[in-house]
């Protein structure tokens, strides 16, 4: 009898230590992650709520006394203004064009990185240069390459005095070029991570069965790296949607090359029209949420790997 009693007592105390250890682990985990929560939320959650609040007012920093509640009127003004739709169209154009080209080009780069034997180190080093370079620097370099007074492009292409930045579509072409040059390496590294997961023996088996390289690409390689492609696509789409540096440096938003992020900056910082600017900020935020939602719910992008869940 005593032995059973003792055993019961023993297991109870064992359970107590386990749960107290678990509790300790939980407490430690909470404390260790607390600083991250604070830093990430401090600069995003509160200002966002503040923007939401300001967007309901007519409020200019130059006239603080004239602050009046206007309800949703700011949103009405923006959504019926051609400036918003123009910037929306510009942003959409840049996003679609750059992401589409970067995906194809990035895949080609990733494939070369996978297959290359001689010069692999040199190539991987080179590809990191555009990734690491400051976006503003890249924008200036491309701008001066196409500019009339300093550029080499017009001379090489015999274009004479063609002003690339004097017209919407040619200016957008240069903006897209700079963006593509800088970010293709990043997308290619993401795709490379997916490409190395594609089983080599499947490729060989298909080759033995007589599948052409093109068939193998579409039937084996791409389906096997779908997760990596979708993640790269989501990240780059949102990145392109937030584009700011390149149009700022190249055109300053002239000739209908202003983007939504640029509009938010101009309303808030240049014009200090905080009411209207905040409404643009909220709309920009909602557009990003919508894009992320489409990717996650409609295209079923699996983000568990990105988040690092196991």
């Amino acid at each position, binding site marked *: 009898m005593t032995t059973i009693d003792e055993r019961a007592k023993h297991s109870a105390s064992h359970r107590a230590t386990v749960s107290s250890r678990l509790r300790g682990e*939980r407490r430690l*985990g*909470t404390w*260790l*992650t607390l600083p*991250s929560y604070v*830093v*990430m939320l*401090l600069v*995003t959650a509160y*200002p*966002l709520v*503040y*923007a939401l609040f*300001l967007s309901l007012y007519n409020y200019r920093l130059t006239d603080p006394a004239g602050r009046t509640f206007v309800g949703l009127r700011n949103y009405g003004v923006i959504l019926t203004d051609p400036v918003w739709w123009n910037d929306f169209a510009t942003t959409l154009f840049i996003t679609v064009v750059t992401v589409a080209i970067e995906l194809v080009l990035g895949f080609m780069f990733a494939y070369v990185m996978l*297959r*290359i034997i001689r*010069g692999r180190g040199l190539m*991987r080093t*080179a*590809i*990191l240069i*555009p990734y*690491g370079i*400051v976006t*503003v*620097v*890249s924008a*200036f*370099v*491309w701008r001066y*390459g196409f*500019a009339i*007074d300093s550029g080499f492009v017009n*001379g*090489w292409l015999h274009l004479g005095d063609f002003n690339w930045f004097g017209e919407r579509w040619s200016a957008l072409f240069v903006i897209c070029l700079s963006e593509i040059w800088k970010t293709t*390496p*990043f997308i290619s590294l*993401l795709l*490379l*991570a997916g490409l190395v*997961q594609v089983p080599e023996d499947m490729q060989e088996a298909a080759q033995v069965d007589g599948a052409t390289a093109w068939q193998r690409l579409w039937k084996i390689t791409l389906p096997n790296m779908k997760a990596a492609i979708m993640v790269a696509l989501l*990240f780059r789409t949102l990145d392109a*949607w*937030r584009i700011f*540096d390149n149009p*700022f440096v190249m055109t300053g938003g002239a000739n209908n090359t202003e983007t939504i*992020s640029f509009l938010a*900056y101009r309303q*808030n*910082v240049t014009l200090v029209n905080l009411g209207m600017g*905040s409404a643009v*900020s*909220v709309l920009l935020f909602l557009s*990003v949420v919508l894009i*992320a939602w489409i990717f996650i719910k409609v295209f079923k992008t699996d983000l568990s790997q*990105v*988040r*690092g*869940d196991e």
Partner: protein
Amino acid sequence: MSARSTRWWTIAGLVIVVYSFFPLLWMIMLAFKPASDIVSGKPQFLPTSWTFDNFTEVFGQPLFTRALINSIGIALIATFLSVIIAMFAAYAIARLDFPGKKVLLSLALAIAMFPQAALVGPLFNMWRNLGIYDTWIGLIIPYMTFALPLSIWTLSAFFRQIPWEMEHAAQVDGATSWQAFRKVIVPLAAPGVFTTAILTFFFCWNDFLFAISLTSTDNARTVPAALAFFQGASYFQSAVPYIMAASVVVTIPVVILVLVFQRRIVAGLTSGAVKG
């Protein structure tokens, strides 16, 4: 693989090398051009004569030298702090079992997608009220916020690969817990921490939006923002060679880090974003 196809892949690799370096080459050409080459009407790719004057001029301007100090200081401090904070979080994610883990990783994902331009208005106003507008700390805080997701992902991916049992094994062999930590865990964790620091530094070094929105003088203005304010030596002279000389200067640290730590950066980028 046959020798011929090997050669084709090498040629393709060479094309990519040219792709990467060509704009850099163009930047160097412009930085070494005399200002008179820009207004000549028939611009060339190569300078008519090579000059170092643009660099002397740029380093003589407080607009640039102050900005360079600001850039280096702000980026280093923000990187240091984010990596420390991310280290705590990544350790918890890799080793502990606690309820907030999923929430933290999802929040990091949301922050990585957040449109930063939506914040410049409220932050501009808040920072002015708090008195940290146009100061180092006013830039360090948002840099930390937006660098953290990258730091946390990269670090927790690295920390997951550490064989933590070795710490215990060392203790069994008679090491004190401090010795076990210092001699076993630190050397294993250091490469991951270092790689994360490089990626975080790139992120802070690159920012432009916050730098122009939250600064107004050279008190905290970083180089990317200062470039937008550059003027030529006189009204009639182009600022192009000066801006390019300054660009070369801020690109040097990037090139050095890439050349020395190429392997680690690739590992960090691929492990942090899409885990294998």
